[in-house]
């Protein structure tokens, strides 16, 4: 019995060590498209972001999806390097299609819920629209780290309302109260000037002697359609979201 217990314990220690090894060996950043100015610095940030929480925080930039669905391409990029059962999050960017995806494994817990993913999308998309790939990866790492910290503290992102909501509610309350009070005030003030004489128009006396509608010109305005943001897609092992930029 004791021997069995000792054997199981050793197995657990070895697996854990292997995991760590895998995690330690797998790079946090793959820039196949050569888009980044400071890949070493960014890789260090990504590695540090997930290190304290046993979670992979990674980024992968490729020249193209080569006709593959971007969602699948992102999920495969993660699984190939880290494995589908490793908790983590990956920022995937395809340069020529100008699309990005954020894919999260199911084992990541509450850190990357729907609200968190929506926030990550807005943070990353803002930088990508300016073609600031370094900034996108940097902000992604910092935001993902913050979300992991919040989840570890028991209050995942979006679970609490921002204090700004209190100010907003008070502002709305102040404006909203003006309407019913204005009506009550009108009850007490009934003397009003008349500016029109519609009560004194002779019925059916309007005669239109001339009615001309002349076309003058046509103008055309062209505006680029704003990039669409995809909805969240969830399959067995991943939740993937993203958009174009």
């Amino acid at each position, binding site marked *: 019995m004791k021997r069995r217990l000792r054997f199981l314990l050793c197995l657990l220690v070895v697996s854990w060590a292997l995991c760590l090894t895998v995690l330690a060996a797998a790079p946090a950043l793959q820039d196949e498209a050569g888009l980044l100015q400071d890949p070493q610095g960014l890789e260090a940030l990504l590695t540090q972001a997930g290190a304290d929480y046993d979670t992979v925080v990674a980024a992968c930039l490729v020249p193209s999806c080569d006709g593959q669905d971007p969602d699948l391409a992102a999920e495969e990029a993660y699984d190939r390097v880290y494995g589908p059962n490793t908790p983590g999050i990956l920022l995937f960017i395809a340069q020529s299609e100008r699309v990005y995806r954020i894919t999260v494994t199911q084992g990541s817990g509450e850190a990357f819920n729907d609200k968190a993913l929506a926030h990550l999308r807005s943070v990353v998309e803002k930088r990508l629209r300016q073609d600031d790939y370094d900034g996108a990866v940097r902000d992604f790492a910092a935001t993902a780290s913050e979300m992991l910290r919040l989840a570890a503290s028991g209050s995942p992102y979006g679970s609490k309302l921002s204090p700004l909501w209190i100010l907003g509610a008070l502002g709305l309350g102040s404006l909203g109260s003006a309407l019913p009070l204005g009506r009550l005030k009108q009850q007490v003030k009934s003397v009003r000037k008349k500016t029109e004489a519609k009560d004194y128009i*002779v019925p059916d006396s309007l005669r239109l002697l001339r009615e001309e*509608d002349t076309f003058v010109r046509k103008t055309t305005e062209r505006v680029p*359609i704003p990039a669409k943001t995809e909805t969240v897609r969830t399959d067995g092992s991943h939740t993937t979201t993203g958009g174009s930029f």
Partner: protein
Amino acid sequence: MVQPDLIEYKCPQCGGVLEFDSASQQMKCPYCDSVFSVEALQSKDEALENTVDGQWQPPETTFDESETANMGVYTCKSCGGEIVADETTGATHCPYCDNPVVLTGRFAGDLKPDLVLPFKLDKAAAKAALKQHMSGKRLLPRAFSTDSHLDEVKGVYVPVWLYDAKAHASLILDATKSATHDEGTERITETEHFTLQRVGDLRFESVPADGSSKMPDEMMESLEPFELSEAKPFQTAYLSGYLADRYDVDAARCESRAKERIRRSTEEAFLRTVTGYDSVEARVCQIRTTENRVRYALYPVWLLNTTWQGEHYQFAMNGQTGKFVGDMPIDKSLYWKLRVAWAAGIAAAVYAVAWLVSHL
């Protein structure tokens, strides 16, 4: 000096003074309840066609010259008492015996009104309307209803100018129609621009403007509309029992007020003829009036004056339809308490909804 005629309508049965009764729309004796039609007394008004306006008799009192410049003194035919009235007073009561009197000179010749709208509601209705007006007003200080003193209630015929006109309008308008569709990565908005012309006529009848400087214009306008289909040719009998003033603001001075209202309504009516466009803006709007006609009428109004905390408040009721107007004070502390309570309630509701949505 010729003193202006005073008329008192005496009851043939008992000699009491007849008053116009709003309920029956006839002349009624308050002493013996005898009733007579207004038409029967028409002969008294025949002299109005030729009457010359009376000469002013300066009062034999110690008034300043400026105070007496616009006043006259008359002798009551019932009691001989002196009635002092200004130059616009047309009907009043003797201050000694309270007999109603009509100063015919005020409504003679060119000053004779074309129409009169007889009173349909009496003093009791006016007092009841005031009570009704004060009830149910959340922001009215409670003490106003209980502590305010009704100083006087008077039925007044207010002189009003009625303007008929044909408004001729010529408008040039800029209008647009837009359509939007997507093509590839672009959103395309196509806008068609048009110039519209509208020319035409519109008739107005009996647009009122009050001809008395003693009656606030806004109060008189707030009492509109009056039902002119019930107007009668003028007879002094209708004035008996009420106060009446002749005009002191003539038709020419009131005309601009009526014309402004006609102009605004004409523009609105012509803009409504434009349909099928997404936006319309008037670039040029020329309106002139022709076939102008003005009539002089007397409109019935009950005036009620109250005092509260040293402030005077005036109310008015349309003596024909019963419409009641008058500004009242606001309880400021209650206003702010309610404002804060509403704001807190709405803020709490908004925050609660946001919290629930965030936890879905």
